[in-house]
């Protein structure tokens, strides 16, 4: 079976773009990815796309051209990009298609998301009494984790500091201003123990990738990136998930753990081989917990890792080199693809000021979303 290569990268900067619809931001990203691959939209045999609040992804054909391609809409919460990539991977791997597009975009209102209980199989009382907030879940998960593994508040601050420092050298990031320890420590509390600078915000933006059979990739780029695995997993009974009125007595591994195991196994690569990673950091605690859930360190080791600079751009495992969700914000449909976009630039050696030294060869991306779904991709040169 053929390998799958990523040969085109496109992004519309994340943040706020009052003059553009979400769909238009998706179209800009798609055109950029197709141009990066030196080809045309009519060469795309398929597309998978998703958006939460920006409209139906397949409406993009009105902007890109009515070529008759297979265009499938994907919606899987924060794992939308991961699921689109998984679908594209399968479409090429199976031999059905040679080349296609993955695209995600969004345009969210300001402030926290306001999900509706009925969309998640819950009754209205859950939302009406003020339990339907993802911020509460993230706060409660890290609160318990800090208790179980003796993680300090200083470590939460360090993760935020790194995110904004990396954002400050990322020209497409939304938050490009580095923040001091004091500024982060003194920010208003949102949901104990997490304050304003420890959460990412809903945002806008678009991201697209062109994929093709690896054996034809050189026609489109000098430096294709191989997509070695693209895995999505849902939750098991006993994992602690968002939007859960109750949790099981048993404690089961999160879907991140199972997605990560499967992705490493498919790729025939282990955590120690990874040179650069993107881990879902919708808040600082998530980045800390996801380091262990993805197998990069043991639970409880994170504080030492972070103190030693392991996750910095020049560390042993650079994490969220573009500032992650914290500095880029989260346009849900595009966010998972933005992670892959950044890893591809790192593996191509085109990441500019934030380039990881010594020519990284293996990259890793991870998303986590409601109501307990994770997507992991492993990429190599």
């Amino acid at each position, binding site marked *: 079976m053929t390998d799958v290569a990523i040969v085109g990268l496109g992004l519309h900067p994340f943040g706020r773009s009052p003059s553009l619809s979400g769909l238009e931001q998706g179209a800009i990203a798609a055109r950029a990815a197709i141009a990066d691959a030196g080809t045309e939209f009519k060469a795309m045999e398929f597309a998978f796309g998703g958006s939460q609040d920006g409209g139906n992804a397949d409406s993009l054909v009105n902007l890109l051209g009515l070529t008759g391609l297979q265009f499938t809409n994907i919606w899987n919460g924060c794992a939308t990009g991961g699921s689109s990539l998984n679908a594209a991977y399968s479409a090429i791997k199976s031999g059905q298609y040679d080349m296609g597009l993955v695209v995600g975009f969004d345009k969210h209102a300001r*402030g*926290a998301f*306001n999900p*509706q*209980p009925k969309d998640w199989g819950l*009754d*209205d*009382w859950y*939302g*009406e*009494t*003020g*339990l*339907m*907030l993802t911020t*509460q879940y993230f*706060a*409660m*998960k890290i*609160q*318990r984790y800090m*208790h179980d593994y003796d993680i300090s508040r200083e470590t939460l601050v360090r993760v935020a500091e790194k995110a904004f420092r990396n954002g400050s050298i990322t020209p497409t990031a939304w938050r490009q201003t580095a923040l001091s320890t004091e500024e982060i420590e003194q920010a*208003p*509390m*949102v*949901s*104990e*123990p997490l304050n304003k600078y420890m959460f990412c915000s809903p945002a806008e933006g678009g991201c697209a990738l062109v994929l093709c059979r690896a054996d034809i990739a050189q026609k489109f780029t000098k430096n294709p990136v191989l997509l070695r695995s693209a895995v999505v997993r849902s939750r098991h*009974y006993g994992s602690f998930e968002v939007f*859960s*009125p*109750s*949790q*099981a*007595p048993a404690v089961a591994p999160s879907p991140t753990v199972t997605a990560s195991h499967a992705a490493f196994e498919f790729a025939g690569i282990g955590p120690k081989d990874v040179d650069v990673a993107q881990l879902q950091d919708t808040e600082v605690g998530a980045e800390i917990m996801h380091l262990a859930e993805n197998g990069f360190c043991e639970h409880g080791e994170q504080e030492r890792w972070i103190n030693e600079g392991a996750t910095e751009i020049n560390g042993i495992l650079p994490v969220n080199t573009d500032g992650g969700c914290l500095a880029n914000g989260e346009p849900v449909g595009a966010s998972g693809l933005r992670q892959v976009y950044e890893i591809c630039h790192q593996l191509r050696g085109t990441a500019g000021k934030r380039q990881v030294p010594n020519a990284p060869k293996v990259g890793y991306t991870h998303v986590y979303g409601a109501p307990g779904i994770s997507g992991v991709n492993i990429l190599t040169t």
Partner: protein
Amino acid sequence: MQTQQPLHPGLFSWPGSSPQLLGSRCKDCGEHAFPSQHSCRACGSERTEVVELGNAGTLWTWTIQSFMPKAPYLTDETPENFRPYGVGYVELACGIKVESRLHENSANALRIGLPMKLEIVPVRLDNDGNQLVTFQFRSAEAL
């Protein structure tokens, strides 16, 4: 005549001298769920029964909601008189952890392992002027 009514049926036994949370128990695998559901989330069986889950437990984790949520949040509060509230998971004797609003709303009043007790509290008035009530937990130490 205006009365007190549960915000949602089947969440707790009420009225009565000692309200209990209600949930379901799977007749095949024995696992509990809150709220009660017709099929079991652990094994998929459709043989479940409604049972009382008790009215006490210990705090497993917690946070504080410091800003007034957007819709679907629905109370009689306004942004001006909104009062931050605690949220936590309370581990019950049957082992499941139930998510709940907490009476306490400051970091120094809450800690993991704190003994907690169920109470029934008002949420808002409905269109007919009835007072809707729901469950929450509060520290059993402070009582």
